[in-house]
């Protein structure tokens, strides 16, 4: 069963369902990849037919939707992913934050979850390369993830060629050293300037000790959760945002569907969400 290609109608139904539940749009070109993920999940759940597995997925039996999305999205992270949000960070978010806060405090940015570190390091490189005011401020970048294995990898800072695809050769030369044919390590200076920590976004006792942030990147994780967990995560993130602070979600995610706690902010490069300046603790 695991090597049997998925039928066209089954593939369409699954993609349709995935889109409605997560907003993720899957093109025909990814059919083989999706088929493999389905085969893996069918084997893992002991499903003997697609219909049986699809019923399990739709019923979210034993959090199957989460497992499927995990299998579906794994290894999708890379440097400068959704870089329109990085442009938004330097063109809009940081200037707005600086207009309403003390210039003496460090600017705090949280990448949560950070996986193997591509996102927090991307933020660091982007700021150094694209923000003229970068030398005028102290900037603190924290990367957190529930998975301690990926955190260890993030601290080590070794990446494959595929992870660096979106970086120019000049940036790769400037910030990485090549280890072998397919591995590059990010420079020690950057490794030493990003703090990594273990935290589960739905555990308040994990999130609160991280303090208040000016900007939080929380991309492509809320889609994994059920309604209750999404609401808890939204409230935790709200508490960790400074009043007036911004949160960036993945392109398929909408905070408006999860919680009314945040204001929608439409900038030229991205739609982000903001903790209101008033009414916050």
């Amino acid at each position, binding site marked *: 069963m695991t090597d049997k290609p998925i*039928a066209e*109608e*089954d593939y369409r*139904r699954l993609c349709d*369902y995935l889109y*409605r539940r997560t907003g993720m749009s899957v093109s025909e070109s990814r059919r083989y990849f999706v088929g493999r993920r389905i085969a893996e999940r069918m084997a893992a759940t002991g499903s003997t*037919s*697609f*219909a*049986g597995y*699809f*019923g399990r997925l*739709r*019923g979210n039996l034993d959090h199957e939707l989460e497992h499927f999305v995990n299998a579906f999205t794994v290894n999708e992270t890379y440097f400068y992913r959704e870089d329109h949000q990085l442009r938004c960070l330097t063109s809009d978010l940081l200037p707005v934050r600086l207009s309403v806060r003390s210039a003496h405090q*460090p600017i*705090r940015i949280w990448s949560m979850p950070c996986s193997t570190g591509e996102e927090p390091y991307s933020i*660091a490189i982007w*700021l*150094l390369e694209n923000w003229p005011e*970068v*030398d*005028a*401020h*102290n*900037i*603190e*970048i*924290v990367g957190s993830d529930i998975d301690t294995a990926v955190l260890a990898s993030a601290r080590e800072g070794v990446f494959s060629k595929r992870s660096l695809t979106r970086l120019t050769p000049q940036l790769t030369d400037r910030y990485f050293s090549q280890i072998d044919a397919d591995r590059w390590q990010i420079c020690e*200076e*950057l490794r*030493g*300037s*990003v*703090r990594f*920590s273990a935290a589960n976004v739905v555990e*308040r006792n994990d999130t*609160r*000790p*991280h*303090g*208040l942030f000016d900007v939080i990147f929380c991309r492509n994780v809320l889609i994994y959760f*059920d*309604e*209750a967990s999404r*609401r*808890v995560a939204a*409230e935790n993130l709200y*508490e*960790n945002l400074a009043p007036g602070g911004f949160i960036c979600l993945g392109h398929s995610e909408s905070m408006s569907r999860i*919680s*009314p*706690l945040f204001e929608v902010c439409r900038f030229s490069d991205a739609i982000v969400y903001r903790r209101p300046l008033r*009414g916050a*603790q």
Partner: protein
Amino acid sequence: MPLIRSTPSNTPPIEEPTEVNLRSSFADSRWAAARAAEHNPDSVAALAEALGCETDMRVREAIFTALARIRTPECVDAVLPYLRSDDASLRTAAIDVLRVVPKSTGARLVELFADPDSDVRLLSCELARSVDGTEAQRLLISLIETDKEPNVCAAAIEVLSEIGDAAALPPLARCQARFPDDPFIAFAVRAASDRLDTPGDRD
């Protein structure tokens, strides 16, 4: 390099309010109390009472979230009245809670589908997604066979198309016949029928 690395010890903590009480006059205190209540199943009655008089949207959200985390049958009773609220955020929050208590919510679907308020019936169709598929299909079929509101039927058809099987095809056709002049019902029935009339779709 302008990038600095903090340590846990020099990170300024998030301040907790001095008082944590659902009846406090300070919203921050009530927010903290609602957030803390998620770990206490005995707090449902207090949360339900607080929800009835809470004016701060932020605190109301935290109360709904606590109820969604506690997820006992009493939580269903606490939030059901908000399905008929004029405030969309309250309706949405109530649905969030009801979805995570599928067994207790499923037991209330019969009365919800018979509610005189068509908006309640329409919203309740969404809840059928999270309850047992066979029973949900039976109830949705009953709805599309009898409900006089085309919007309610359209919502039921959409859900039916996702959780149902080919047994829903005749009722879908009869529903379309009840609204011969409604192009959207015709479209919805056609889309649902196409989806359900595929061999191997039944789980």
